[in-house]
């Protein structure tokens, strides 16, 4: 599963004591980690554990109460995301980052065609040649196993699994360096899930993207991630190599999570 990882490399994303309160209520607290190119980090925990708050803070969709998130720009410079201007931040989101939502309707434009959903991201980074844009859209639809004769159909006519694959194509077409995924297989049938996981796994390795995957599903974390962070009540309670955390969990809460997996 592992994409090539060079232990000497500098981090792509560096998070230091990230804290977010909602008024008096804690969202997440003192979360620190580095994420490297080609690395997939899974954030696991139950609803309310703070994992979605963390994701939204990292992806600059929400302001931090304290702490810092630094990102290595394409020129190699580490920049504090809070210090970026609005235009710079939007440029990052359009070019360097992807965000795969649990509900594809949140990440797709439902009133334009499948091909336009993919092509739009290319136009946003300056691609203008219609033939090339359509060619890329065609190519990406087949990579995510959406029948290419559906290129002019609206995503409204797609199944849930097909919509999610289209959302992935839309996000990956610009070759982002970092992709955030929020429960990417949640709400799908298990057979569709397996196919999607296999696809994500192959694409992440092939494109050497870094990815941060939020999931409550430990099987998804095991299949996709190199490292795991377990969150509870807004804090990280355990982290480490994915198979180590799942096979030899140390903290009481991690042991509870692992022992609660249903066996089939």
């Amino acid at each position: 599963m592992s994409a090539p990882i060079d232990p000497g490399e500098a981090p792509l994303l560096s998070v230091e004591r990230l804290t977010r309160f909602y008024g008096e209520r804690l969202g997440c607290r003192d979360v620190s980690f580095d994420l490297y190119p080609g690395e997939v980090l899974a954030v696991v925990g139950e609803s309310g554990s703070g994992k979605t708050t963390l994701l939204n803070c990292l992806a600059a969709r929400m302001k931090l109460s304290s702490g810092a998130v630094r990102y290595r720009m394409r020129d190699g410079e580490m920049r504090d995301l809070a210090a970026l201007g609005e235009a710079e931040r939007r440029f990052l989101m359009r070019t360097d980052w992807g965000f795969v939502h649990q509900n594809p309707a949140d990440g797709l434009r439902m009133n334009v065609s499948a091909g336009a959903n993919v092509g739009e991201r290319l136009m946003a980074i300056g691609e203008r040649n219609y033939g090339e844009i359509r060619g890329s859209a065609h190519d990406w639809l087949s990579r995510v196993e959406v029948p290419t004769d559906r290129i002019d159909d609206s995503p409204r006519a797609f199944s849930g699994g097909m919509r999610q694959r289209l959302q992935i194509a839309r996000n990956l077409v610009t070759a982002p360096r970092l992709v955030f995924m929020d429960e990417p297989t949640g709400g799908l049938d298990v057979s569709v899930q397996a196919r999607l996981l296999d696809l994500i796994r192959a694409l992440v390795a092939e494109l050497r993207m870094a990815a941060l995957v939020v999931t409550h599903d430990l099987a998804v974390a095991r299949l996709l991630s190199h490292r795991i962070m377990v969150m509870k009540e807004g804090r990280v309670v355990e982290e480490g190599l994915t198979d180590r955390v799942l096979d030899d969990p140390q903290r009481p809460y991690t042991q509870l999570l692992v022992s609660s997996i249903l066996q089939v």
Partner: protein
Amino acid sequence: MQPRLAVSGLSKSFTMHLRGGIHIPVLSEASFEVYPGECVALGGPSGAGKSSILKMVYGNYAADAGSIVIARKEGGPVDIAIADPRMVLSIRRSDLGYVSQFLRVVPRVAARDLVAEPLVERGAGREEALDKADALLHRLNLPERLWHLPPATFSGGEQQRVNIARGFIAGHPLLLLDEPTASLDAANRDVVISLIAEGKAAGTSFLGIFHDAPTRGRVAEREVDVTAFSPKAAA
């Protein structure tokens, strides 16, 4: 000669937080070495901690104390017991392989792709890796009609052979074997024994668990008695 693997003062216990925090010591102060070109068997009854040692060496279990130093082909030696996750993954790619008793099945991935994967991760071309995967599966007598299928529905012995091929393909300098012949017939057991012999001749180090005494006698130069590291003996 430098050992390829040097285990020193290695201890392991489990704390079951869901069972009132019961503490189960498994190993105390385990120390041994494995040199290039030799096969060392871990001996002792079930529950003595043999599998725990293999899993700690692979970085799959956390060690309570002690060191697990692996000499790398490139770069200096690394202590797996304290290495960060990225270093452990890097060593698994370049230096350290593991044939577990059971195949952890990845949905939808065909047997020959699963086998080829470790070689691709080491930088080999896809075609070359698939050719080598086919050769190994052929040698292990896995019927060719199964090569393109995901192993989820294979029998125990068929999955075991996929697992063995996946472990041997990349030619890692240190290979951990957890009962590699447990569910194999005599003919396939002989194939595994000759794969180990060829590996040793090429300088590969093996650390393994072999419950079958004749197999152990044919592959292992030495046996490390794990009961010597039982926590009671140490107390």
